């Protein structure tokens, strides 16, 4: 990329993407609860209201189903709405509009419309907000044809994937992990896009492949660092897109490393790890596997409030290290 690069936080990078889009495209509006003067529950929209005014940075009442539906209707009729859910858990109120309408409208109408709506979902645990404010539900969306689903993990990708989503004619769901909002990283200035549907190798390694999503990417990288000291070289793939899954990228890596571990925060059963495991087992990488595929995911429980339980409910670095060590050294 040619643009100069600065350090921004993940939240700032998202805001910058929205500002670029608002600036260059009159059709872009941002909608959601308390995204105006409050700046959003996680301060992602921040000062956009001051720069673009209340006609484009639209505070909605607390009406997730109606709000999402309005965004869908606006998308079909010429706007490019970005709809922010205050917490991804509240998507449970809007699945009708997302799944029955946005995802299917083009198909049901035989191709006569597109639905270029972007929805943003602050997701995940780790903030002590308990079971109704900590869910990771991206697998539900990944199960729905007609949707695209991304999970950026770096500030650079958060910006690039949002700009890509805005250029995409179809509904794109963006899962943002709350713990990432304050993390910082290099972000190119100006407009660029990060391709939807492409995974990214964050660290090269020869001994074992880890596919991780969301906040688990940085935990996997930490684990990889620890293991490097033991001489185990872990390849870390940031999945980035949950639908469509970049199966070729994973296959290619597994063919080199012969071992695969998938780490995500969502509940393990029927999480994205299940799909990846099944796909790799069906792929040409299968014959290269020297050990069964390992999945690490959230415990089979709602997220608890108590901080120790909360941590125990999702993969943490020591558990990832142990699992990878076992996998790489043939103990599993």
């Amino acid at each position, binding site marked *: 990329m040619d643009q100069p690069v600065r350090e921004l936080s993940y939240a700032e990078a998202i805001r910058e993407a929205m500002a670029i889009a608002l600036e260059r495209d009159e059709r872009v509006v941002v909608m959601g609860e308390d995204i105006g003067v409050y700046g959003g529950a996680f301060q992602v929209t921040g000062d956009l209201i001051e720069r673009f005014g209340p006609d484009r940075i639209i505070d909605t009442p607390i009406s997730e*189903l*109606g709000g999402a*539906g309005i965004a869908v209707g606006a998308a079909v*009729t010429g*706007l490019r709405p970005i709809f922010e859910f205050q917490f991804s858990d509240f998507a449970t109120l809007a699945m*009708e509009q997302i799944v029955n*309408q946005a995802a299917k409208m083009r198909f049901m109408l035989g191709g*006569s419309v597109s639905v270029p709506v972007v929805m943003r979902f602050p997701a995940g645990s780790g903030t002590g907000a308990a079971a109704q404010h900590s869910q990771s539900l991206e697998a539900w969306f990944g199960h729905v044809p007609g949707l695209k689903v991304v999970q950026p993990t770096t500030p650079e990708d958060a910006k690039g994937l949002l700009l890509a989503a805005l250029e995409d004619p179809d509904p794109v769901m963006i899962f943002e992990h709350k713990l990432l909002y304050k993390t910082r990283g290099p972000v190119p200035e100006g407009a660029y896009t990060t391709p939807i549907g492409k995974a990214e190798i964050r660290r090269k390694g020869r001994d074992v492949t880890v596919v991780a999503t969301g906040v688990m990417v940085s935990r996997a990288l930490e684990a990889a660092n620890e293991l490097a000291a033991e001489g185990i070289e872990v390849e870390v793939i940031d999945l980035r897109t949950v639908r469509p899954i970049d199966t070729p990228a994973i296959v290619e890596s597994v063919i080199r490393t012969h071992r695969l571990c998938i780490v995500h925060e969502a509940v393990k059963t029927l999480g994205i790890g299940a799909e990846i495991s099944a796909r790799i087992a069906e792929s040409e990488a299968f014959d290269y596997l020297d050990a069964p595929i390992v999945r690490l995911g959230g415990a089979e429980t709602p997220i608890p409030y108590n901080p120790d339980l909360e941590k125990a409910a999702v993969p943490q670095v020591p558990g990832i290290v142990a699992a990878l060590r076992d996998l790489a050294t043939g103990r599993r």
Partner: protein
Amino acid sequence: MGREDKAMVKKAEAATGADNRPFLFRRHDAGTIREAYRKMLLIRAFEEGAENAYMRGLVHGTMHLSIGQEASAVGVGLALRDDDQITSTHRGHGHSIAKGAEVKRMFAEFFGKETGYCRGRGGSMHIADVSKGNLGANGIVGGGIPIAVGAALSARRLGNGKVVVCFFGDGANNEGAFHEALNMAAIWKLPVVFVCENNGYGMSTSQARATASATIAERAGAYAMPGRTIDGNDLSAVAEATEDAVSRARNGEGPSLIELKTYRWRGHSKSDRNRYRTKEEIDHWMTENDPVKRIEADLVAFGILDEAGLDAVRASVAEEIEAGIAFAKESPSPDPADLERFVYTEGA
């Protein structure tokens, strides 16, 4: 109104001091009125044709017929410009035809053909014709309400002067989507008209058993918007109330709610045994309050069409239906290789 018609109205007014004819006849020229009548007949004939095809096993799935409700679709349509938009419902054939859909492409959709409005992918519950401003029927009760408000948001932001009409039923008014969408339309003063076709029942459940308020219209008060209850089988009254609400919307004065009282003659869908209403009730509406007969009487009374003229329209409608069915039958089915086409936008 055409120039000649306007002159005639003026003359009539001059003679009598005022024009006492119903709104429809004061407001519209004879050609427009004839066309509205023709659309009512076309809706009914289309649905009878579809029903017949269903009985003969030509149509898959189910369908929801609006026979008996033709005046509401057409009356609303009279108040709209071509580029105004509507969202429709599972009982949406009338809305489609009123907004300009061709019956041949509707039949083709029913028959699952590539020439149908949805290329055979959607069927009865998803007919749309975006080029005519029809954003589509909806299989989800209340599902179109927020979408209509979203379209109105677009209209306002894009400054294109469009008004959106949102059709829904008396049953739909108990969905949360109704509440959320009407509230937002009201606080943002969006150019949308909410038209509740109150046919007395949501499937088997009467309004009295499902809805706590005595009328749907009075719920408008909760959103500080005007709400009116109108005889939905009176084409003129429907057109008048809608035109008021549409101008309000177009002038930036915000949304309105119109409740159109009507009745569906057929069962809810093809599997209904009509156990929740009496034969007497159904007969009463069919014989005493048929919107088609009512407009026919007016057309004759106000000299727009005589019996021969009515017959001519009927014949031309029958012909269009027959040709439409033939077109649909002859049309090709989708290629099974295209199963996953249209899930995403091609080339994106």
